[in-house]
């Protein structure tokens, strides 16, 4: 494929299961490498929002946050980032306990807070928008929207409503694994639905 993505767009990646949406997302983000070819960009791109695969289970939440902050921020910003995540995730005393004692909800709170603590031009979002209980969900979506104002999203989701909420254009991977860019999300969704014969159920 050879595709140019315009700057400053929020792009949804759509396609059936296993089409390679997440892989494409990871390749764009520079986390995975393509077998051949290149991704050229001068923007900063986040790790997948809410990722918890990089956490070390035997370390505490604070230590894990500190680790990622060391990777992405300057030494002098460390405390600021850590206290942001601590306040946002609302884990209380669990923030200083090993991650392996966390429930999955707590883990995703930490992961989400960690992603939001750093500023990127593009955020990669793979199937997560809101986690946790109702009040936390509300807080998440508020923060998510404010971050949406000055950054862009690249999004994979099967929840068409959240795609519509955050994105205005789309990359569509069809059954023949051909990737097409659409300037309008609705147009892409129409084609997606037709190709998957979903019209009747939606």
């Amino acid at each position: 494929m050879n595709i140019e993505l315009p700057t400053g767009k929020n792009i949804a990646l759509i396609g059936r299961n296993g089409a390679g949406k997440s892989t494409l997302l990871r390749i764009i983000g520079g986390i995975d490498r393509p077998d051949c070819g290149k991704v050229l960009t001068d923007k900063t791109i986040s790790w997948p929002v809410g990722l918890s695969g990089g956490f070390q289970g035997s370390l505490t939440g604070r230590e894990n946050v500190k680790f990622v902050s060391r990777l992405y921020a300057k030494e002098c910003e460390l405390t600021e980032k850590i206290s942001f995540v601590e306040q946002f995730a609302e884990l209380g005393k669990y923030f200083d306990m090993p991650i392996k004692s966390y429930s999955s909800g707590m883990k995703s709170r930490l992961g989400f807070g960690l992603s939001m603590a750093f500023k990127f031009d593009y955020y990669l979002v793979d199937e997560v928008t809101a986690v946790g209980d109702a009040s936390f969900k509300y807080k998440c979506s508020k923060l998510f929207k404010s971050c949406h104002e000055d950054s862009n999203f690249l999004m994979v989701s099967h929840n068409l409503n959240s795609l519509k909420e955050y994105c205005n254009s789309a990359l569509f991977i069809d059954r023949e694994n051909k990737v097409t860019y659409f300037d309008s999300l609705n147009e892409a969704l129409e084609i997606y639905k037709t190709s998957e014969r979903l019209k009747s159920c939606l």
Partner: protein
Amino acid sequence: MARSGFEVQQAVIKALFFREIRTRFGKYRLGYFWAVLEPAAHLLVLLTIFGFVMHRTMPDISFPVFLLNGIIPYFIFSNISTRSVGAIEANQGLFNYRPVKPIDTILARALLESVIYVTVYILLMLVVYMSGEYFEITNLLKLVLSWSLLIILSCAIGLIFMVLGKTIPETQKFLPIFLKPLYFISAIMFPLHAVPKEYWPYLLWNPILHAVELSREAVMPGYISDGVSLEYLGLFTLLTLFIGLMLYRTREEAMLTSRLKLKT
């Protein structure tokens, strides 16, 4: 303001270093103290067994000093190089963070192992000194240089192992088997001059033996090991580092590609 590539790599190595030390020693009481205490205790037991129980002595060097200068360099080498074989798999989750490169995991580990073992070395040499054994650092430069070269060599071999281990997963099984005999041919338990001279040309291929014997020469006046040379160690290290970096450079992208192999 964006950070330069060098600054990023420095930050990554530092982050990995602290993560590693936290993971390995953070859960114990006395924490980091164990980092030094564990290998120190291990070596003290060896010293006691060989030195005081078996009464091993040497004509030209105090036995504990002899053993310390052999076994610690060997531990540094084997700890850095063998762990690199599975470095990619062990750190898979970390490569989700884009600044982290495979080489950083090796450098961070090498830094940690070096700090630990150099501290242990200084500590135990002091203990040995206070218990009345004689040694004198006659050539500090030689000591520092041969240890530094050994550490660089270990990283270089680690790089080669990492690439091998990722390209051919089976190496993870058989490499440790090849590394074990190094313990017996690196002059750790015997001095080079105890070996008949006709076997020297074979033994002297081994750079670890050079590092070990050079380090003994540096701390014991009158201990002379003909045949070893700093030049050889330096040259070998340079060559290995070249091969290691070259392999790494060509395979870095491929190592980060998640490729699913079809089982046929």
